[in-house]
């Protein structure tokens, strides 16, 4: 039994090391896949890390948190990026498939921003109203119901912009805004954080949600209040860190079991000052200095 476990570990370690050629100078490849919210920052990490460790190559791809986690459970990637927590049944599948328990690393924080077009006069919204727009059977379908008049449009039907169901952002929004109720069908379900912001930027009557790092000059992030009459907070670094912004969330990396070798070194580097500086530069919130690793 023990031997089998060791063999499994060895196989995993081999997988993690990727295509080390038989020749002496082997390049290690780390496969990294997942959250679309994190794909930009993950790419920056990979680029920067090339300078730190030239013989390690990190291959980054997006697709959504669900896609990354599914790949991790199949054992085809070394690190999965996820903007949501792993679900209990996913942990179960991992244990059943690979005999390993996924290990979680919080590498930063993000505020899920609510975007509207820059000409939209609305500055703040209550979570309840947001749910009323997006939830199945919701009654808020026109901007006038929110007391908002959008200049220059005749039809003020709210154009709901949402994400595809493989996105961690989608699931986070469903859990925290809709309270796990379902979305009203008929929203435009786009497959990237950037696309959401782009479409909202092109559509005066649109509303959408996406990571705060994706803001452009064409859109406006609205302040969010937990309850009617409560203070509305803007999605800023400060408000995310002190948790006063209602839709703050952690950004995770997941590995199968305790990471080893180059993967471990890479994750430690991400959790150190240089890695966290990239998190900050990408518009997200880094982890607290006392939880970082010392390089």
């Amino acid at each position: 039994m023990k031997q089998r476990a060791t063999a499994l570990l060895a196989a995993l370690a081999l997988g993690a090391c990727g295509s080390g050629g038989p020749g002496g100078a082997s390049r290690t490849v780390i496969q990294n896949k997942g959250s679309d919210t994190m794909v930009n920052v993950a790419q920056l990490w990979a680029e920067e890390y090339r300078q730190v460790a030239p013989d390690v190559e990190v291959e980054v791809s997006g697709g959504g948190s669900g896609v990354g986690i599914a790949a991790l459970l199949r054992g085809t990637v070394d690190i999965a990026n996820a903007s949501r927590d792993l679900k209990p049944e996913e942990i179960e599948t991992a244990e059943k498939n690979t005999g390993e328990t996924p290990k979680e690393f919080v590498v930063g924080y993000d505020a899920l921003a609510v975007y509207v077009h820059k000409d939209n006069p609305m500055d703040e919204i209550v979570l309840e109203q947001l749910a009323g727009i997006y939830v199945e059977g919701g009654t808020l379908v026109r901007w006038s119901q929110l007391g908002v008049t959008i200049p220059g449009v005749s039809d003020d039907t709210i154009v709901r912009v949402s994400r595809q169901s493989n996105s961690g952002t989608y699931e986070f929004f469903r859990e925290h805004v809709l309270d796990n109720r379902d979305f009203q069908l008929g929203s435009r379900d786009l497959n990237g954080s950037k696309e959401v912001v782009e479409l909202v930027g092109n559509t005066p009557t649109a509303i959408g949600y996406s990571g705060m790092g994706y803001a452009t000059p064409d859109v406006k992030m609205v302040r969010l209040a937990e309850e009617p009459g409560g203070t509305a907070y803007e999605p800023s670094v400060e408000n995310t860190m002190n948790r006063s912004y209602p839709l703050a969330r952690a950004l995770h990396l997941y590995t199968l079991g305790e990471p080893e070798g180059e993967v471990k070194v890479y994750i430690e580097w991400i959790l150190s000052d240089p890695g966290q500086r990239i998190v900050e530069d990408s518009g997200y919130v880094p982890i607290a200095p006392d939880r970082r690793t010392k390089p």
Partner: protein
Amino acid sequence: MTSDSTAAPAPPRPARPRWAVQGERLLEALIRLCGVSAILFVVSIVFFLFREAAPVLVSESFDLGEFLFSREWYPTSVSNVRYGTLALTVGSVSVTALAMVLAVPFGLGAAVYLSEFCGPRLRETLKIVIELLSAIPSVVWGFIGLTVMSKLIVRFTDAPVGVNVLNGGIILALMSVPIIVSIGEDALRAVPDSFREAGLALGATRWQLVHRVLLPAARNGLLAAVLLGVGRAVGETMAVLMATGHAVQIPHGLLDSVRTLTANIAAELGEAPAGSDHYRVLFLTGLLLFVITFAVNLTADLAIRGIRRK
């Protein structure tokens, strides 16, 4: 096959070398295999689709009526999972129908022009350009829909968002026109020249000739051209994924966003855990798509037979 007539006292024919006989047999078998392989592939694809989809059919959380006739598609719901594909089917049908309304007159018109009205040099040039048009990858068409077409639609209509049925329909029409033109033109040119000569000898005008003689004579080929266009439009994935707005709803007009069956499979299969109900329902959706195209082809086949019998 040689005849073994032994009656005539002719000198014995030189025997063919053994390898030539064997080689010919081998080639024959190979060609037969190629012919049969098409059937083999279709059957195995259907079998594979069905094998992946079948377990969900007997699962108690699944209801075939709901699958076909409910418009509620909530494959990942936390509280109440529902697999209704009606909105997706209507999405596919509406985009395809619009594409055909646009593409069939254009495509057949162009085919008639190419085969009957234009000079040989212009015809060659046009044919090359049309072949080029059909060589554009679908993701490029989708990109055009997403960037160029959607802006035009927002400017010239009062649609809030430019990715919708109209956009997808126009893009699909542009994609199917080349197929309709080249196959339609072939069908028209396959009509023997004696038909044309006879028509002209009877004093028919060129329009009468096209309308009364050529179109009826080439109708099987033309129908095949249109159906291949339909097939392309129904099965197209990437372009409609990008151009239709990806919203699960039954459209009330050309300016509503929709999601098609194909786009839905493409978007969701990657995240559906293998073996889960969601995964199997997506395969069932593929099977549904197959049944739809099969029904279209069968109807067309029967229609052609009906016309022939007359």
